[in-house]
């Protein structure tokens, strides 16, 4: 029988103590890096270009009345259009009728694979060329709605389909056993439950749309149609200062952060109803 000498723990520390030391070292390193950057930074020149309050002030009130308003409007219109179309595509994907499925699958693959910019461009310039005399209802807003919504619909269709399939089969059986038609079952029982499931991924889609709305600039918008990014970049040029970009960045956050907390609130509200 060989006697094995137990290896003494390094420096006589327990596993937990060693982890503490490791973590402490990492924090110390992080602190040093921050300190180094803070000391090395030319705060005066940095704030002179990025935090010029006079430039920021000159953007008010058009920041709110035009830029944020337009960004929200483009986003919500495209979201509503995308949701309505995405829901139909999701149902087509789940249809027992082959051509419906093929169409929906083809649509999703096509629009998911194309850059939003290309789609927007094709809608804005391709459709009026292909159908001379055609005007979008709502004119520019209608065009943006469709241009951004077509892409959004492809993503939402996939999300909603997954949500519908996540509703247990017994729900359909219970509803049909009560004499509900397939359509009634879908709209009264399955889809309300599917939507509770897909709220988080749909919010993701909404937030992506907030940012994609900046693509509208390619359409050669008039001043009154500026959304946040175009609005900011126009000030960037006229004021020769990067401060407008900071203002615009904060404005985007002012839109997206409340959206995230709204979703958390919704999820909490639905928690017991699922």
């Amino acid at each position, binding site marked *: 029988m060989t006697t094995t000498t137990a290896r003494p723990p390094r420096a006589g520390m327990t596993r937990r103590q060693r982890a503490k030391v490791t973590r402490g070292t990492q924090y110390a390193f992080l602190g040093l890096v921050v300190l180094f950057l803070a000391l090395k930074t030319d705060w005066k020149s940095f704030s002179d270009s990025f935090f010029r309050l006079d430039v920021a002030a000159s953007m008010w009130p058009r920041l709110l009345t035009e830029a944020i308003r337009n960004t929200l409007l483009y986003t919500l219109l495209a979201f509503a259009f995308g949701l309505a179309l995405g829901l139909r595509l999701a149902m087509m994907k789940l249809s027992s009728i082959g051509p419906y499925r093929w169409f929906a699958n083809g649509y999703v693959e096509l629009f998911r694979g194309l850059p939003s910019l290309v789609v927007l461009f094709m809608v804005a310039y391709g459709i009026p060329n292909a159908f001379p005399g055609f005007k979008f209802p709502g004119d520019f807003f209608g065009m943006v709605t469709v241009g951004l919504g077509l892409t959004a619909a492809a993503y939402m269709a996939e999300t909603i389909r997954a949500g519908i399939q996540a509703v*247990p089969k*017994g*729900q359909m*059986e*219970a*509803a*049909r*056993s*009560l*004499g*509900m*038609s397939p359509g*009634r079952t879908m709209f*009264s*029982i399955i889809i*309300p*439950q599917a939507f*509770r499931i897909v709220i988080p991924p749909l919010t993701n889609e909404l937030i992506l749309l907030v940012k994609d709305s900046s693509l509208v600039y390619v359409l050669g918008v008039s001043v009154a149609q500026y959304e946040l990014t175009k609005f900011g970049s126009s000030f960037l040029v006229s004021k020769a200062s990067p401060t407008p970009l900071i203002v615009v960045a904060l404005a985007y956050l002012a839109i997206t952060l409340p959206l995230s907390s709204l979703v958390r609130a919704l999820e909490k509200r*639905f928690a*017991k*109803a*699922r």
Partner: protein
Amino acid sequence: MSTTPSGMPSVSPPAAPGGAGHAISIRNLSKAFGDNIVLRDISMDIEPGQVVCVIGPSGSGKSTLLRCVNLLEQPTSGKIWVGNDEMTDPDVDIDKVRRRIGMVFQSFNLFPHLKVLDNLTIAQTKVLGRSLDEAKKVARHNLERVGMADREDAFPSQLSGGQQQRIAIARSLSMDPELMLFDEPTSALDPELVGEVLAVMKGLAAEGMTMMIVTHEMGFAREVADRVVFMDGGYVVEDGHPSQVIGDPKHARTKSFLHRVLNPMVIEPDDIHPDGLRDAISDLAP
């Protein structure tokens, strides 16, 4: 068990044609899932007011039989009438007939996004076209019947399994069904919650509801059923009064099934013999 049970007797088909006066008529019903034959040439009639318990080992086809009655499963062949409507007729308005057939599931299947009262009113208003006020009145009456009158504002997830199942029964009753189908209504419940659901079902039976119940509750079957059907391997093996089928079974399969169900801890010497054990296991999970 899924091997050819050549000696398996099939209860001879009743002579009367389907439809006439029966609550449910089943003729030569067969159902296969792919190569797996689950129901083999089943024929039976259930009379109005009858309480029929269907028992048998799992995989015997009893749930499939029940689900064929309201066409949740499409029969492979054979015919089924509910009242005078032939369910298996391709032209039947299935949604219309299903209104008259209550269905209670093992997993309750309440609508989780709706409060209890809305669970009971939604089909009344959307399917039967009742006004919301009338539907609520009917719903509250039925909640009273199942002893859940005080929980109409709860969501299903806030209720125990037994309470959920009683709500599910009340939901079916709110459609004023002619007959009720129960698919192992107590199998998903904690043991101490089984009683409250069985009590509601017993009350329904006493009111004269036509009921077809797939169950493992032998005590309930013996006490409440007018008739017990024992199924095995897709056949109806025995069919008769509970005192006969449960109390004095004729067929060996019925005897061994009941013996195991009623004495789950007892292991027969036969079961310990490798072949006997294999048979016993395959009986439980074919």
